[in-house]
Structure formats: structure tokens, C-alpha cells
């Protein structure tokens, strides 16, 4: 190897650096996006067209988003976090990871869908449901589940799927729904055992929910990473029942699984999510993030979801509601305490991961 070949190699290395520089895009607004990928695409493209701000996004599940925000708290990679159950936003806010932003646009949003300290605002609402494959159900000889108890049927062994609550906001919503139901039950038996004086479910309620999920674990095929994934497992006929957001089931029906998938709701009551939005503390593009924040609360921005079959309900009362959307008034929903859910999120997901998820099934 001579000097000449050394020179040649260093030239190559320089060339490589030039190539690498080409990869780096110009200054943009970076969105941490939690809903399904195609909605992220549609939403960021619409924003870019509306404002001229170059916008890119990274799609991560709710739990993954929270983990990543915590990991890079000193030096945030994202400016705005859009979508995913509000519990995760509340958990992030408790750790001081969200920036206060008192947006005027938020005035249009009903109080029940936002944080009154202006840390996060709801951008959509959706209810949890059961998404079942009719052919598989028929073969197993059972009807579509209409209660949480139905999911424990021995026929469904290995035929139920849900996401892992640690990664998925959907699955955490499902968990907290059972906590709420357990608290109601305890409260009915004896006043004060289900809820503490602040109105948060007691530890006994949480323990009862863990008991339920330990039993359900026997019927679970696998825990997926993303909340909506069990729905497509059901569509493909790999499982019978998926515990997912009902709008995700409707989306699948619209995209090829019509007549294959049915949506049902538990008669005891189901949980729901407020899809949150917040600006991250130390956001590198704070001004652009505020522009996004205001824009995402407008009726026009909230009407983008249905164009890609994301049929969550808008939080802006002026936004048109798709006929296909599942209306909260038509189903029984539980009294979901978002504040308590957010405060308990990390402890519960860690316990679920340690006690339930890795346990072998019989």
C-alpha cells in the first residue's frame, strides 16, 4: 500500500462524508406522531401546504414516544407530539416534559377534552371496542363478545390479541378501563374501597384488574407493539378477537375487511381515549410547534383523519363528523379518570411487563 492508495482511500472517505451530508434535510418542524402512519403522512403534508413550514415526523407508539421523550429530555429531537391517549401526555407532564402553551385556538375545545393548565389539548376522541373475525368466531362456535367476561371463554384460548401496555396507549387504555370497572364494583360492595378521597381508583382496584389480565393472558396469542395491530391479526384470521380502538376496526373494515370484521362493545362499559397534543419542553422549533398546535385544533385540520379512514371523533365541535365514526353517546363508556391513569401509567406498565406479559401460558 503506497502513499497514493492512502490518498485514494482518504478521498473516498471525504466522498462518503459529502454523500452523508446530502442525507441531512434542511431545518424542519419535527413532529412525534402517534396515530397510524397514513394519518401522520396526511396531517404533516396538509400542514406543510397550509403554512409552508417543512414538516417531518417520526411515527412511534404511545409508550415508545414517552420512553423516547424521557430519554432525550435534555436535548429534545421533536418539537410537537401529536396523537395517542392523553394518559401518556399526563405522565409526561408529571415529569415536566411538556411546555406550557396557552393557545387561543384551544378555547374552541370543550373543557373535558383538555388540560386546564394548558399543558396538553385533545385533538380527537375514540372508544375502545372488540374487533372480531366472524369466520373464526363461527368456527370456534361462539358469538362476538359483548362483555369483558366473554373474553375469558375457554374457546378463545390463544385467539385473543392486544398490544403490550408498555408500548401501546390502546392497551393501556384497555387496562385502565378494567381498573375503573373494578373500582366501580368495589365501590358498590363497600363505599370507599373502590375510589380514594381524590376520586382515583384504589390499589385494590388495580390489583383486581391485574387478576383479570392474568386470566386473560391465558387466551392471548401475543402482545403486539402497536395498539392497532391486533385488528389486522383478526382480519387475517389469525385470531378471533382483538381488543383495539373501535375506530381502528372501522378503518380496517373500510380497507378490505368489510364483512369479515365486526365491532362490538362490552356491556359493562368501555374505555375511551382523548388523543392528546403537546409541545415538548425545550422544543428546538418552538415557534413552528405553536403554529402546528393552533392549526391542529382547527376544524379543517381535524377533518383530515376521515380522508385516510382514521375515524376518530374530532374534539373541535365545528369539525364535520364522519358517518362511519363510532359516537360516544351511542355506547356505554366508563368514567375514565385520565389524571389518575396518567399518574399510575409507569408503575402499571412496569408491573404488567414483569408479572403478566412474560408468564408462560398453559
Amino acid at each position, binding site marked *: 500500500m503506497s502513499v497514493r492508495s492512502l490518498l485514494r482511500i482518504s478521498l473516498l472517505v471525504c466522498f462518503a462524508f459529502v454523500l452523508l451530508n446530502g442525507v441531512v434535510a434542511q431545518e424542519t418542524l419535527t413532529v412525534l406522531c402517534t396515530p397510524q402512519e397514513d394519518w401522520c403522512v396526511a396531517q404533516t403534508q396538509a400542514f406543510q401546504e397550509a403554512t409552508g413550514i417543512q414538516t417531518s415526523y417520526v411515527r412511534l407508539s404511545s409508550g415508545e414516544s414517552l420512553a423516547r421523550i424521557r430519554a432525550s429530555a435534555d436535548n429534545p429531537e421533536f418539537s410537537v407530539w401529536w396523537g395517542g391517549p392523553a394518559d401518556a401526555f399526563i405522565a409526561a407532564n408529571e415529569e415536566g416534559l411538556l411546555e406550557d402553551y396557552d393557545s387561543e385556538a384551544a378555547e374552541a375545545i370543550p373543557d373535558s377534552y383538555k388540560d386546564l393548565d394548558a399543558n396538553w389539548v385533545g385533538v380527537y376522541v375514540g372508544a375502545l371496542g372488540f374487533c372480531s373475525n366472524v369466520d373464526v368466531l363461527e368456527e370456534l362456535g361462539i358469538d362476538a363478545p359483548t362483555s369483558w367476561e366473554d373474553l375469558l371463554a375457554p374457546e378463545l384460548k390463544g385467539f385473543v390479541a392486544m398490544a403490550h401496555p408498555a408500548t401501546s396507549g390502546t392497551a393501556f387504555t384497555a387496562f385502565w378501563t378494567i381498573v375503573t370497572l373494578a373500582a366501580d364494583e368495589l365501590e358498590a360492595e363497600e363505599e370507599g374501597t373502590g375510589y380514594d378521597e381524590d376520586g382515583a381508583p384504589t390499589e385494590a382496584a388495580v390489583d383486581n384488574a391485574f387478576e383479570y389480565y392474568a386470566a386473560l393472558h391465558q387466551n392471548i396469542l401475543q402482545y403486539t407493539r402497536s395498539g392497532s395491530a391486533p385488528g389486522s391479526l383478526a382480519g387475517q384470521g389469525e385470531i378471533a378477537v382483538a381488543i383495539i380502538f373501535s375506530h381502528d376496526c372501522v378503518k380496517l373494515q373500510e380497507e378490505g375487511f368489510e364483512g369479515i370484521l365486526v365491532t362490538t362493545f362490552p356491556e359493562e362499559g368501555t374505555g375511551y381515549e382523548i388523543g392528546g397534543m403537546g409541545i415538548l419542553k425545550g422544543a428546538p422549533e418552538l415557534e413552528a410547534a405553536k403554529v402546528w398546535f393552533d392549526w391542529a385544533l382547527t376544524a379543517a385540520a381535524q377533518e383530515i383523519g376521515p380522508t385516510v379512514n382514521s375515524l376518530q371523533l374530532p374534539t373541535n365541535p365545528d369539525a364535520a363528523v364522519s358517518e362511519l365514526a363510532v359516537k360516544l353517546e351511542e355506547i356505554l363508556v366508563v368514567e375514565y379518570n385520565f389524571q389518575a391513569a396518567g399518574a399510575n401509567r409507569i408503575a402499571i406498565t412496569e408491573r404488567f411487563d414483569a408479572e403478566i406479559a412474560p408468564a408462560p*401460558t398453559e
Partner: protein
Amino acid sequence: MQDVRARPSVRAQFRRIFQDPILTVALIGSVIFVGLTIILPLLSMVGASVSTEGAEKLTNYIGSPVYQTIISNTLVMGVVVGAVGTLVGFLFAFVQVKLDVPFKRFMHIMALLPVISPPFAVATATIVLFGRSGMISRGVFGVRYDIYGLDGLTLALSLSLFTVAYLNLKGMMEALDPALDEASANLGAGKFRTFFRVTLPMLIPGIASSFLLIFVESIADLGNPLVLGGNYEVLATRIYVSVIGLYDTTAAAVLSVILLVPSLTVFMVQRYWVSRANVVSVTGKPSGRPDTIKFPPVRWGLFGVVMFLCLLILLIYGTIFHGAFVQVPGVRNEFTLSHFDFVINGIGAEAMQDTTLLSIVATPLAGLIGMVVAFLVVRKEFLGRQALDFGVMLGIAVPGTIIGIGYVLSFNSPITATLPILGEITLLPKLTGGQGLLGGALAIVIVYVIRSTPAALRTGTAALSQIDPAIEEASISLGADNARTFRRITLPLIRPAFLAGLIFAFARSMTTISAVVFLTTPQTKIMTQQILNEVENGRYGNAFAYCVILIGIVMLAIGIMYVLVGSRTGAERRIEGGGR
């Protein structure tokens, strides 16, 4: 280890190395590279696991029956996949080199296919074909087969990973001197006896290193257990959830230390075994053409087995290809181009460009570093030689997720030093995350390189240990220096290994996920992560469309590499045909 030759003292060895500037640069460069890109991130992780909190967790895990099941699941899977994958690779290589049968070219292409697509593409196709409502299991045989668990993982992982064994063993079988077979035959041994007593022992190093690579890769694999693991929990997915869902890096570190134990144990056993069983067969002395096996039961029996496997692979890739063009694979089979539209015009274009570009940068680096280290390790005596080899191998022995998290921990802020006169200087800028150097691209390239270098190193050392050092010694005695000898003699001789290393590096970079899943940034998107997202959201069609494009890119790149590296040079021809 006893060496028959007298060894020069350590100081003498180093003096000899440092007299040669190129060798010095190569050695110091390799050591710095390994230290900074592999050891440092690993130490960050190990550091976390030996903390008080980590030690407590370790005790809990080891004592828990649940984790004992997970550990044994992981080991069983590694051994089964390692054995099946090596066997499949061996069969393909054997048929290719030793049998006179038709469709060899087809078999070769089928054997290369699995390495050029992300493993979870195979897993997804496996579900579409053999799942509970699979097109074959349900559609053809009418059974509701439960593919989730060990059997599904064995199928998908063996088919995804056997190419390593195939390339490795094919290269070795081709390099075996047929004169040895002839000698055995002349001494009265039958074909079977010759195979088991002469051929097989010489292939042991290749078989062992194939098993090692497949074992380690399978227990570190993330995509397959995520997609079709069912309730068969393995350590890799547990680590992934602790990191990605809970950001419990201590738990991840502890679990990875548990995962490291079997990886490193197998690695050590293999090193010891291989070093004992090594046989020099490429001597540079005259030899004839390899003899093919004519015995019909062997010939057509093996042919049948390998053809069946080829058809299985073809079926899986057919499913991927078909699935890219229909609405919902297996459910709604109407033709559509909407998946390609989504991938190319939606979000995929940027990821495609980035991933390809980063892989192009990483490939030659991995190939070259692998060969240089192989040369240093096999041919040069110096203190820490084993450690260098070991360090490079850690790039693959360590599960990708841990490497990724190690990088985030080590490189998420600049590494600075305070010097007496200059004050604080930045030794290394921030590499990972949103504001990382070059948008985090450099960190991804480095991970690509360290994940690919071990394969290049192993094929390199396997090839080099088959070549008699006398050839290089002759070059040195004739007056060439080390660098010239390496370039003109050694490199041409290990060209098949080098090429295999390059192909593997490129394909691996394009298809790796676990190590880079935490390193993608808004500026630098990676195709495999996009594919995983699509699989995760059940849009198999989009995932398959990505895979078709990815396979196209990798095939094109392999074609280019064959043209650039594959042609034989004068030195090789002269050595091989030396006697005639």
C-alpha cells in the same frame, strides 16, 4: 494452546509490526475502531447492569421461574435454528459443489434470496402461507395450523439465516484440494468413508463458524419473535420491551448480560474447537478438478431435498411479491398498485434513499476492516491478537438492541476532554438523536459497519486459515512488503470470502433493524423500521411493496459488486494454475 513453531517474544513481535508503518496504522486503527464503536457502548450497558439496582434485578431474574423459561426458550431456539440453518446451508453448498445436477444456478439464487430481505418479511409471508388462516395450511390442506412459537420461528429464522452457512461452506468446499479425495480413494476408501473421514473434518471450521453465526443471530433476532413468537417469549423481545416500552435501561442491560453468556460461551467453544481442527488445504500446489458424486440415491435424494427447500423459498418470496400487488394478501386478491403508490409517493422515498446511501457507505468499510483484521489475526503474532478478533466479533455477539441503546447512552452528548493549555475540546461530537452529527447518519453507518464486519472477518479468517502461509512468506522473501503481499497475494486468494463479506455487509445493512431502531432520527429514516411499522399495523401489502423494492436494490448492488470484485486477477490464476 501449544504452537509447534518457536514463538518470537512479544517485544520482538511488536518491533516487527511497528517497523512496518502500514501494519502499524492498520493495527492502531483497528484497536481504536473496536474500542470506540463496540467496547465503549458495551461498557455503558454493562456498567448499568453491575450497579446496585442491576445486581438486584439480576438476582430476581435468575431466581424467577418465568425468566428461567425465557432463558431456556432462547437457548433452545438458538440451538435448533443454528443446527437447522447450518444443515440447510450445508446441503445447498454440498449440492452446489459436489453434485452434478441441473438447476444449480436457480439453487444458488434461491440460497442468496433470504439474506436480502428483512427477516420479518419472511415471518409475515410465513403467516400468510402457514398461519391459522394460511393460504397453504388452511387453503390447501384445510388445517388450522398453529405456526406461532418455536416451529414458526425455526422455519422463518432458518430460512432467513442459512445463507451465511451456505456462502461460508460453499467457499470452503470449492477451496478443498481434490487431491486429498483422490488420495483417500487411492488408499482404498469408499466415497462415504472419504466424505466422513477426509472432507467433513476439513469443513468443521466452516460448519462451526456457521453454527456460531446462526446461533448468535437467531437468539438476538427481534423481528421474527415480534411477528410470530406467540407466547414463546425470548430474551431479545424482553429486552426490546424493557427499552422501547419502559425505557428501563438497567433491566435491558441485565437481560442482555444474560443473553451475552450463551453467545460468548458458544463463541469460545467454537474458537477452541476450530483452532484444533484447522486444516490447511489450499497449498498453491497443483491439483485437479473436484470429483462429483455419481451414486444416484445420494445424488437425486439430496437434489430432491434441496429443490423442495428452493420451492419453499420461492413460495415465500412469491407471496411477498404477490402480496405487494394485491389489496389484502390472502383476503382480497384484486390487483392494485396502491401499495407502491403509498411507499414511493408517500413516506418511503426518503427512507429508501437514506438507507441505500448509508449502506453504500458502510459496505466497503465493513468489507475492508473485516479483511484487514482477519489478516492481522490469522497471519501476525502480537499480544492482544485474540482480543482484537474477540472485540470485532462482539459487534455481532451483542444483540442489536443493546448496541443501539449503548450508542444512545454513549454518544447522545459530545465527548469532551479538558486539556491543560487548549481548555475544553470536543473529541467526538454528538452522534445520535435529532441534532446528532449529520442528522444521526454517522451513528447509523457505524452501526452498519460493526454489525457487518464480523461476517467479513469470519469468512476472511476461514478463508485465510485454508491458505498456506508459505505462499505469503514466499512473497516476503522475494522482497515484497506486508502491504504489497496483502494486496497482491492474500486479497486475491480470499476474494470469494471478501465478496461474500461485501454482499453480506450490504444486504445486512439494508435489512438490519434491531440495532438502528433507536438511532433513526426525523432526518434519517430507515426502511426496515418503516416496514416494521407497516407489518405492525397489518398493512402487509405496503410492507411487501417495500420488500420488493428493497430486494430490487440489494440485487442490483450484488450484481455491481460481482462485476467490481468478482473477476479473477492474474495472481489468482497464476497460483491456481501454477503447475501447469
